[in-house]
Structures are given as C-alpha cells and as structure tokens.
C-alpha cells in the first residue's frame, strides 16, 4: 500500500526501505475478515431477502431476514472499528439469533430442510470462529480494580506548590492597583 502512497508523497521525503514487524496479530486480521464478511452478508440479506427465504424454504420471513441483514452490517462495522472486540461479541450473539431462526424453520414439512441443516452447520462454524476471535482480541486495558502505580510526589514544582502559589498571589496583588485604575477610568466600580 505504501508504494501507492509514495506516488503522492513529496519527493525527497523518507521512503520505507525495510518494514518492521506489524502490531497486527492474526486475530486482528481475522476480525477484519469477519467484519467484511458480515457487511457483505448483511447487504445481501437486506437487498435479496427472497433469495434467502426461498433457499431455506422459509418464505414469508423476508422482513426478519432484512432485519438480520441490518444487524450483520452494524456488527460488521463494529468489528472493523477500534471496538472490534465488542463487534465480535455482538456477532456471537447474532450467530445465536441466526441459529434460533434457522431451527424454527427445521420442520418435517419443509422440503428445504437439508439446506437449513447445511446453514446451521455453517452458522455453527462461523460462531466458533467469532467466539475464538473475540477471545483473542480481548482489550488489554487493566481492570478497574487492578493495582496501579500512583504518583503522589510528582508535583512538577521543584520549589513546592506553596512557593508557586505565593509568587502568583504577589504578582496578582501588584497587578490589581493598575487594573483598578483602569476600571475607575471606565466608571466600573
């Protein structure tokens, strides 16, 4: 990508000679892939719900498929964002909803129940992937009750705070008579 960027970069600015290790872990890359997959699936569900319901033998549930499509898009966007972990957990929840909806269509009189079984298998596999990725991308922020270093002696004032406050008060006292004179001239009490 930086080769393309170099085209618009000012001539003479430093260019990469050798890349260092990336901060991105495989789980980050997987989260990104799942995010784009989610958006793609969501768009398909949103704009072609009949294709989905026909394939599954669940005609009449187009509105539900559209709603699931919107959910997929939103969780996909979250998975691509800085909050990817929240996005992935939302996807795990969404996988549960998908499975529940599919199970409701797994009736004896559904001629496409074979497709539903296949879809359930796929959802199960993706759910496992979502769950694993969510585990691997857990934020590393320390918990609220973690032991932390405190800095009670870092005032930044080598001569002490009181010395600074006293100096500031003295400067203010010296400045005040001048200000009052200006105030009198303007008729300000």
């Amino acid at each position, binding site marked *: *990508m*930086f080769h*393309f*960027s*170099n085209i*618009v*970069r*000012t*001539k*003479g*600015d*430093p*260019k*990469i*000679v*050798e*890349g*260092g*290790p*990336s*901060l*991105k872990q495989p789980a*980050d890359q997987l989260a990104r892939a799942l995010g784009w997959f989610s958006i793609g699936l969501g768009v398909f569900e949103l704009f072609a719900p009949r294709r989905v319901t026909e394939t599954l033998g669940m005609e009449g549930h187009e509105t539900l498929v559209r709603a699931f499509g919107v959910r997929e898009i939103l969780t996909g*966007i*979250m998975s691509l*964002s*800085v*909050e990817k972990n929240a996005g992935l957990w939302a996807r795990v929840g969404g996988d549960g909803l998908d499975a529940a909806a599919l199970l409701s269509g797994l009736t004896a009189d559904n001629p496409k129940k074979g497709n539903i079984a296949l879809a359930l298998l796929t959802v199960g596999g993706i759910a496992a992937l979502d769950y694993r990725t969510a585990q691997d991308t857990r*934020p*590393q*922020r*320390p918990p*609220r009750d973690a032991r*932390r*270093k*405190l*800095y*009670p*002696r*870092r*005032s*930044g*004032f*080598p*001569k002490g*705070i009181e010395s*600074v*406050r006293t*100096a*500031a*008060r003295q*400067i*203010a006292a010296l400045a005040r008579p001048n200000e009052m004179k200006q105030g009198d001239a303007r008729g300000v009490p």
Partner: protein
Amino acid sequence: MKALVWHGKEDIRCDTVTDPEIQDPRDAIVKVTSCAICGSDLHLFHNFIPGMLPGDIMGHETMGEVVEVGSGVNGKLKKGDRIVVPFTIICGECDQCRRGNFSVCETTNRKRHLADKVFGHTTAGLFGYTHLTGGYPGGQAEYLRVPFANATHIKVPAGIPDEQLLFLSDIFPTGWQAAVQCDIEPTDTVAIWGCGPVGQMAIRSAILLGANQVIAIDCLPERLSMAEAGGATTIDFETESVVERLQELTDGKGPEKCIDCVGMESHVMPSLPDTLLDRAKQMVMAESDRPHVLREMIYVCRPGGIISVAGVYSGLSDMLPMGAFMNKGLTMRTGQTHVNRWTDDLLRRIEEGEIDPSFVITHTVPLSEGPEMYQVFRDKRDSCVKVVLKP
C-alpha cells in the same frame, strides 16, 4: 534510519526508511536525541483523523542536535546547536506569524489546497500529523528534516536534560495556552477535564497563573494522583457525578473557567448515553468527534465564564447546547498551540527551577519499542501517563 511509520489503523511499525534530505535552502536536519508519544498521536493511531497515508512517519514532540543546515538558514542555526522542534512549522514572516498566531501560519502547509477545502482557510504545517497539515514526516525517528528552520526551532541551553526541555515542543505550551486563554483571576475556580499529559500541564499552568482552586476530572488513579500532586482537587467521573461535585466545590455557582484537555475521543460509558450515541455515530462516520466534554463544560460553566479547548477535535460534533452557550454568555477559546509565542516565558521558568515538566514522564524506552508503547499508552497499561522515546 529507523522511524515509527503509520501503516494503517492500529498499526505502527519501526521501519528502516531513507534518511531525510535538505529539500529547500531554509531546511535543517536534526539528529533526534529524544521524542515522545503525544495523546493526539492516538487519534492517528485509531485513524480518527483523516489524511494519513501508509508510510507516513509519526511524531511531533522532538528535540535534538542540528547536523546539517541549508544555505538559506541565514546563520540562525548552525551545526551542533541543540534545539527543541515546535510541532507547528512556522515561517515567521506571514501576517499570522507576525501577530504571534503561529499555529495558523499561512505559508508552511504545503498541501494547503486540502486544508483550504476542509477548514475554509489553511492552518500551519505540522510534523507527523496527516496530509491535511502538510504531510510532513514526523520526529519519531533518528533524524528529522525541519522545514523553515529559520523560525521553526527553539534553541535550548546545554546543561538542562532533554526530559525537562522536550515538552516545550507541544504539551507544556499547550497546557499553558489553555490556561492563559482563560484569563485566570485570583478568585477563579478552573475545572480541567482530562488528566493526561496536557491536562497535567494545564493544571500546573493554572496554579502558576494564580487560580484560587483547580479541579481536575479523570477516571484513572495514576493520573488523578499526579493531578493532586500538582495542586488540584480531583473528581473521578466513574464514581462521582461531575456536575454535582463541581456544584459542591463552587457553592453551587459553577467554575468560572473550564478547560477541555480530552478532545474528540472522550470516555464512553453506559451511564452517559450521549457518549454511546456519539461512539455509534462515529463508527458509521455520521459524526467525527465525541464532544461529551464540551457539552458538560457548557452546562456547568458559570455564566459569563470562559471555555478553553486544548483537546483535539477533527471535524463535526453533534448536539452542542448552543442555547446554554449563548444565553449564559460564555466565551470559547480554542486552537492548536502557538508554541513559539510562549517559548521565552516557559523556558525561563524551567531555567529558574519554577517548574520541571519531566514530572509527567512515566516510561522511557528505545525508539524500537515505540509501536508497543503506543498500545501501552492507549490501553493505560502499567500506569502509563507519558512515554519518551530514545532513538
């Protein structure tokens, strides 16, 4: 040379890049002795500010030794000079520079056509801070090209360690300007949102400028302890109501002066629904900033008061209570820092031992460990408040 290079969202790498060259007679090349990671670098790390390209070198808090000067530098700098590099690139000659409005220098943004379109008028070029501000390579590197080096430098004396001087490049004057913009009077209560490095400097600046009471708001114990050490009364917004505590501490009148040292990535909490909504909108690019702090400041500030914004905002903020802002007669002052406007005063205060800005440093590591330190700083791990990198 080695440099910390932006490769995309949350991906900074320590790459080997070509050395910078003199491109213009007014350039100088600096061998970096110390540089730092700034809170506003995190906005780039998260890719919340548009205009970064893979391959851009990060960093805008840098100091070092001049190793090469162009023929047009006119003797103001010479090889061997020790300088702090202000994060704003200034020409020193345009109308704005002559007025001391250095951060809106009219000359130095070499991609001003972009800034003109986005902001209406260009602002100064900045080191390592997107192509909206010139796309200049930053100073988290072994060497840095300083354009307009005639004016863009702060000469510093030998004998004072880097750690005390480095922050003249950004966070110290930024905190100072935030406080100065408040026109602090001896009876004033100054409330400061955010106790990161700039917030810490703003606290000390408000004390130096004679505020009667300084109240600092954050949620991290290490930052709150540092704020308290600097003379502030603290509020932990995760366990206390900021509005109620500020009312208590000001006899129900509200602080006269409010300083925002948080900016566009304010903390998101379920108990503050506006922060959740902002985050959701930011995610789908319906809003670029999370302005919870601005809303809260407008609400609590005493009528006739001043709001000073040092935190970085990038674009569009929703649901600002303009009714309260207008009817309470508040004044808002903002701006990237006019670094060189404050340099003489702040350098003197450091030299005289009035303040030692190195108090804020909690981590000093080699440049090669910079990428991991971005994550540590972002996640607030290991009680990290400020990171200094040594190339």
